[in-house]
């Protein structure tokens, strides 16, 4: 809201400096956004919060100033002279849609002479940046910026049968507004019609047809209360926002309609002449009378944290327009004014008294009691995860939670249900390359596709060695839940090879639980390569998936090189996490290390070989270490491989003897031979 310094002086004596004024207004709730010098005036831009429609006019701002500086507020008392002819003889108003229009008043002035508005009025409107039209239209604008009540003047000759009907728009009703553009209306919008068609879009804009022009002789003045929600949705649907709709959306003062109507008539009579008909048409219902609010003084100290002198309270409320009903040593009871619909409870009055007294007087060094906070396990686990991954050279990415359909469908291992759809798409979040992929309106069920897009972007920008991770929620709808599952996942995308990335995952798991072992099972995910992929398990909990991106998926995501992706469930990791590790005694005796080299079929998996090795070795086996695999078809025949591994034995009680070690080795050889048809080399 822009206010003019000169205009304000009509209501309050501005003895303070400009800077002092805008500081105090800022500190009492009208944030100063800037001031422009306009001719001999200051155009002061104040931010008005949505609860303070009263400050969308100069009088409201002047009232604030009067309360802050404890100075008088002088308001006009319009008493326009009326003729003897009664308006009811010439005009009628019917409200058909009461929900959209609570109250409608009309006055009629006959015989006006359209011309320029007075110089002083033009100057004030220009200070606000408002265009000058003529003495009637300018007067309606002037009163709107004076008191916050939008008004409209119709050329009465264009109102068919002198009949005003406030009704809902008909389907596809066509309306040409003052901006000379044509709008297609819809039910739910409120129109002002005559006995034929719409002459105004209620609370939003007047019609071109009934606009006041140089030929206008009689003007009908509308001052009405339109429902905020109806006005907002119409303005929004039609993308037609006006100073009028802005005010109706924020709830105008229905009690002030008559004052505003009289005020504008007075100004029009002054500058355009004519005769105001006797009486006013006032249909609909006046606002209910306001209920008194009781404010206990103790609430001030309790909620503001400062002591405010009791004798400050009632006068301040009065300055703001409240009417004091009663007061005693402990409390005051006051009736809020019609223009302050935001004041209904004691806490609302606490704010009023506090802000006028000054929030700057509230101390910033009180004793807040100490309290110990703790870090939830999930937080600590995520921190450890991030530490391991950054140590492993992975950078963290943050990507949008909504994805287009092809990405949504590309990888859905966690969930069979279709994704949740958002009513609104995310706009502007896709790179140009990906613009045609689809509307970004699906809640993602995996982080992997988003990371593949990030990988693609980096590849296209020639950024080498892209290793990224993200931790975020995925959204997994399922039947019968009030709020869908939103588990936290961790996803990785990497330039490195399968085992390099698997090593990172294993290191991560070890960091969280030194005893946990990642197992891999076969999986069947179209996004992943058929062989270089697997389902990851920790004990009997499924941890997630990893694999090399398949050729077709690489094509889909525009990748030029191989990529390994991983997605794991942070909840499972959290379950497995051992935040406090336990010590086991280290054996003081030397280890015995033995290397093995077996020939076996390609089908034998290392996991199953290792479990055979461990199966009968007992507590003396300290570790099994895989060394390498190689193939020599000439010597071993087709479909065969040689697997080298090393086993360390150690006892906690004594140095192992050669015979003990040999027995353990023989057991391994026997078991491997029988379980896997493996042949020991050498």
């Amino acid at each position, binding site marked *: 809201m822009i206010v003019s310094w000169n205009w304000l002086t009509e209501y309050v004596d501005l003895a303070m400096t400009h800077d002092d004024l805008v500081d105090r207004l800022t*500190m009492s*709730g009208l*944030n100063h956004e800037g001031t422009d010098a306009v001719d001999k005036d200051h155009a002061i831009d104040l931010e008005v*919060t*949505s*609860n303070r429609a009263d400050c969308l006019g100069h009088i409201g701002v002047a009232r604030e100033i009067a309360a802050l500086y404890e100075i008088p507020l002088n308001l006009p008392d319009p008493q326009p002279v009326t003729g003897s002819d009664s308006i009811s003889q010439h005009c009628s108003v019917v409200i058909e849609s009461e929900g959209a229009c609570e109250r409608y008043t009309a006055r009629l002035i006959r015989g006006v002479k359209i011309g320029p508005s007075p110089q002083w009025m033009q100057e004030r409107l220009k200070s606000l940046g408002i265009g000058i039209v003529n003495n009637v239209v300018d007067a309606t604008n002037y009163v709107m910026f004076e008191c916050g009540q939008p008004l409209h003047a119709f050329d009465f000759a264009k109102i068919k049968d002198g009949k005003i009907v406030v009704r809902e728009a008909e389907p596809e009703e066509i309306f040409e507004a003052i901006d000379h553009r044509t709008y297609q209306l819809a039910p739910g919008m409120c129109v002002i019609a005559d006995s034929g068609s719409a002459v105004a879009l209620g609370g939003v804009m007047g019609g071109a047809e009934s606009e006041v022009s140089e030929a206008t002789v009689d003007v009908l003045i509308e001052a009405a209360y339109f429902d905020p*929600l109806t006005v907002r*949705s119409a303005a929004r649907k039609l993308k037609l926002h006006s100073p009028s709709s802005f005010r109706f959306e924020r709830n105008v003062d229905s009690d002030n309609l008559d004052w505003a109507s009289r005020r504008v008539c007075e100004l029009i009579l002054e500058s355009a002449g004519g005769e105001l008909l006797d009486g006013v048409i006032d249909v609909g219902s006046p606002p209910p009378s306001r209920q008194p609010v009781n404010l206990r003084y103790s609430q001030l100290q*309790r*909620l503001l*944290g400062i002591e405010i002198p009791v004798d400050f309270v009632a006068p301040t409320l009065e300055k703001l327009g409240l009417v004091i009903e009663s007061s005693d040593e402990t409390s005051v009871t006051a009736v809020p004014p019609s223009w302050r619909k935001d004041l209904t*409870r004691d*806490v609302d009055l*606490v*704010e009023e008294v*506090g802000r006028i007294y000054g*929030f700057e007087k*509230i*101390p*910033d*060094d*009180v004793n*807040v009691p*100490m*309290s110990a*906070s703790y*870090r*939830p396990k*999930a*937080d600590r686990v995520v921190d450890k995860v991030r530490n391991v991954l*950054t*140590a492993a*050279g992975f*950078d*963290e*990415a*943050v990507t*949008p*939670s*909504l994805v287009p359909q092809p990405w949504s469908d590309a990888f859905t291992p966690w969930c069979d249900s*279709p*994704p*949740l*759809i*958002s*009513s*609104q798409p*995310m*706009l502007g*979040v896709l*790179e140009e390359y990906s613009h045609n992929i689809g509307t970004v309106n699906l809640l993602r069920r995996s982080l992997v596709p988003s990371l593949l897009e*990030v990988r693609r972007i980096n590849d296209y*920008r020639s*950024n080498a060695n*892209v290793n*990224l*991770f993200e931790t975020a929620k995925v959204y997994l709808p399922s039947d019968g839940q009030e*709020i*869908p599952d*939103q588990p936290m996942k961790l996803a990785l995308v990497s330039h490195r090879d399968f085992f390099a990335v698997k090593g990172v995952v294993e290191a991560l798991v070890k960091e969280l639980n030194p005893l946990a072992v990642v197992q891999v099972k076969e999986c069947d995910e179209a996004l992943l390569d058929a062989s270089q992929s697997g389902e990851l398990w920790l004990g009997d909990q499924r941890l997630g998936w990893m694999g090399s991106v398949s050729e077709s998926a690489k094509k889909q995501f525009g990748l030029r090189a191989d990529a390994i992706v991983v997605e794991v469930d942070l909840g499972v990791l959290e379950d497995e996490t051992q935040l406090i590790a336990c010590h086991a005694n280290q054996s003081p005796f030397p280890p015995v290390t033995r290397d093995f080299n077996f020939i076996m079929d390609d089908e034998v998996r290392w996991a199953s070989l290792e479990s055979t090795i461990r199966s009968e070795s007992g507590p003396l086996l300290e570790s099994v270490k895989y060394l390498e695999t190689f193939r020599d078809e000439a010597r071993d025949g087709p479909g065969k491989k040689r697997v080298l591994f090393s086993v360390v034995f150690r006892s906690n009680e004594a140095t192992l003897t050669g015979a003990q070690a040999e027995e353990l080795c023989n057991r391994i050889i026997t078991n491997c031979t029988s379980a896997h048809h493996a042949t020991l080399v050498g």
Partner: protein
Amino acid sequence: MSIELFIEQLEALAQEADKAFSEAADSDQLDLARVEFLGAKKGRLKSLQKNMGAVPGDQKKTAGMKLNAVKNSIQDAFESAQSRLSSASSDGQRDVKFDATLPGEAFHVGRLHPITQTINELKDIMGRLGFTPAEGPEIEDDYHNFEALNIPRAHPARDPLDNFYLSVAETTSGNDSAMSGNPLLLRSQTSTVQIRVMENTQPPVRIVSLGRVYRPDTADWSHYPMFHQIEGLMVDENVSLADLKTVLKLFASNYLGDEVPVRIRPSFFPFTEPSVEADYYWDGKWVEFGGAGIVDPNVLRAVGYDPEKVSGFAFGLGIERLCMIRHQITDIRYLFTNDTRFLHQF
């Protein structure tokens, strides 16, 4: 060849090698000598080894043992020369061929996203002030996102065009969640976590919640339809604006690393009364910090607290803005494009 001759040749070679190694004046000369005697292909020891084939069969074992002994002694002589030369260089002689200014082997430590770094810092500060992190769902219902926060149905914030309301894919009509009494949406603010925590906890409460929030703004340099908020809540007996101002001042001073003035000025939010905007004074001007206020009694009642017995304050800050100001990031979209050249800067 007789074994005697073979041994003689070996011993001569050992002597020659010993001499060459001990006379080598620097590592280059030593290396030449090493190639001459111990070279894997054309070294003299290697060629001498071939003569062993001519030694009579029954003496081969003796010859082999002698060969190994000589091999070891030449190796030892080389190593002792090597250590002589290296200790000589550490005694003050610089080897110009060693360029210590060459770069080390590249070792990339991954970077945490600047948003995460900001969040971690804010969470740490709030933790020191006694606020425990709390989590809540990002998919919320209307009740927790609006109703319980005292945001009436007619409030502009609830406009369907300004929120990501949700429905399930297969539904064709009728079952649209936006149509039902308590539709689901992506939360538009982290204040929802306040409600969920208070519903399940009795006062005193001191929490901080952080996370993603969603509003359908078209992405541009200063807007993104997804962003992050931090929200603090403290409820106890007699919590006032003075407590809020004190905590905000500690918070801002801690974050900025210097004692900064903080001011609060009246504002409007449905879930607080009084509502304030907090600013901190930095670089000669007031900078917007975030919104705050005393928890509205309607909110306390909605979670079953008695507003006559307890009061509380809440505040919320936008993470992106703090992060962008601190790191001088000029376009919010950089944060979500994840170009590694961007990420590596933080």
